[in-house]
């Protein structure tokens, strides 16, 4: 692990757009889509940036390694996940340039995997703080985090069979949930 940047000026700070260009340059076709959102706050209209990068599944680990080159150690906030029809999307929300008195950039790296092959590379070895959120994604979305050091069930009750994934939204999963959640069809998907 690299030493953290203690103060401003020790490392070269990139802007959101520069981070995007770096990813496009280094990962080439692996980058599917990018976006930089800028938000202003307060009377002073002070801006901060939120960068969104979507990559192919096979490039996901490289993308996280590349972000660690931007600012290390990486701070992971959480990984969010959702069912988007035939695919499952996972987005890892990282923060770079923290602890510098301002200018922290949120970098969200997302990737998708088909429901027919729900495998996803784990990054818990690169970012140890990711383990809790990866364990959660496994049980709630039914993705298999490949290489996860500890893949046990975390939040869901032991009485819920391991093949029930509450955040899946397809009819097949809803049928499985019927047994455990009252009026699940009234709730809709």
């Amino acid at each position, binding site marked *: 692990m690299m030493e953290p940047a203690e103060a401003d000026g020790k490392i070269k700070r990139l802007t959101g757009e520069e981070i995007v260009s770096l990813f496009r340059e280094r990962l080439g076709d692996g980058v599917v889509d990018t976006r930089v959102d800028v938000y202003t706050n307060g*009377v002073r209209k002070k801006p901060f940036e939120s960068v969104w990068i979507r990559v192919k599944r096979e490039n996901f680990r490289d993308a996280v390694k590349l972000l660690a080159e931007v600012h290390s150690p990486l701070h992971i906030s959480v990984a*969010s996940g959702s069912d988007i029809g035939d695919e499952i999307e996972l987005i890892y929300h990282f923060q770079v340039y923290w*602890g510098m*008195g*301002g200018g922290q950039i949120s970098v969200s790296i997302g990737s998708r995997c088909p429901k027919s092959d729900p495998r996803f590379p784990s990054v818990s070895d690169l970012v140890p*703080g990711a383990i*809790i959120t990866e364990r959660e994604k496994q049980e709630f979305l039914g993705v298999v985090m490949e290489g996860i050091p500890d893949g046990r069930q*975390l*939040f869901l*009750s032991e009485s819920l069979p391991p093949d029930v994934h509450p955040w899946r939204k397809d009819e097949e999963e809803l049928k499985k949930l019927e047994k455990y959640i009252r009026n699940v069809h009234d709730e809709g998907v």
Partner: protein
Amino acid sequence: MSKCSYTLPIGPVHPALKEPTMFKFVMDGEIVKEVDVQPGVNHRGIEFIGMRRNPLQVLHLAERICGICSIVHQYAFTMASEKAAGINDIPERAQYIRTIMAELERIHSHVLWAGVAAHELGFDTLLHWTWKLREDVQDVLEYISGNRVNYAMYYQGGVRRDISPEKIPRIKEMISAYRREFQKLADAFLEDPLFKHRTVNVGVLTKKDALETSAVGPTTRGSGVPKDVRVDQPYGGYADLDLKPCLPEQMGYPNTGDTYAKTVVRILEVGQSLDIIEFCLDNMPPGPIRWEMNVNKVLMHMKKAGGEAIGMTEAPRGEMIHYVRLDPGDENVSAWKVRASTYNNIIAWQKMLVGAQIADVAIVAASIDPCIGCMDRVTVVDGETGKEGVMTKEDFYRLSVRKTRRLRRMKGKPSGGGW
């Protein structure tokens, strides 16, 4: 597992907890060797419910995730859904009111924590005194919003209630009352020899571990990691303040990451919150408090809009993040992920508990401010004989109190504050 070690399960559930947790300790005599945390025993599936509701309904759901820091969940969800729907011009006055509410809540949460920490060590007079102190800020929260727990102040595009000029003197009165009591609060905890004895070098989180585990809030700041969303990525009224993260060294205590250091951080933050509230009251911009007065119009706008965003706030316990995705034409929130601060501190917790004494488990577990109530049932299994016995939270608490009394006798003098 060595011959003399045994497993000590603690937990799993207590009604007072926002995140009930089950601990499994592998003990060697009185020392914790390994820890496994198994949360989720009372997982309520709030995200599941939220993904079947519209953003205005989710607002109320978000506020009910936590009974102590309810407002920061609503704050994070409001910001995430506003950004996802492209509502970016939030009135400045509303941004300031949001900041004031969030800081009032931080004071109440930190003072509440201080009381819990005192109770875990057996200082019940101090518990009652700090909770009496907390009533002042609770009264002001009620004065502004009409509520003591779920304030229902925020919604997409602004806030529901204004802080009108005639309300300001009452809030300022509270600020001066806290300033008068502040030194007493700091002394009661930080100058007491017994409190020091129970917290210094207890439950240490090293800076390296804090960085590796992405720990957040006072837990990480106690170890000298200057992470604070209000400073790193200022949102709302915080953008106009030049804040610095509170670290123990500001009070002349090294950033050791022990329980004492975390206490120092929280006490410093109470003072910082008072300054922030005062700044916001003095510099409150004029103007409207809502982007759109008609709630139905807000809802219609969000129904048509599509997008995704994250909302981040600094909760009393640390960074809090909500992810929201809205699909055009779909009234409901399509994706919602809530990440409360304790979620990121679980792994740090494990690191802190290893090496702790059994009687210190209560205060170390409380040091990340998770609501210690989860320890309501403890089964002790003797590894050699397989004999089981049940310890309640009461037994556990008694062990902790006994240790304080033993130390007091050993020191041969009463504790500093006279309580």
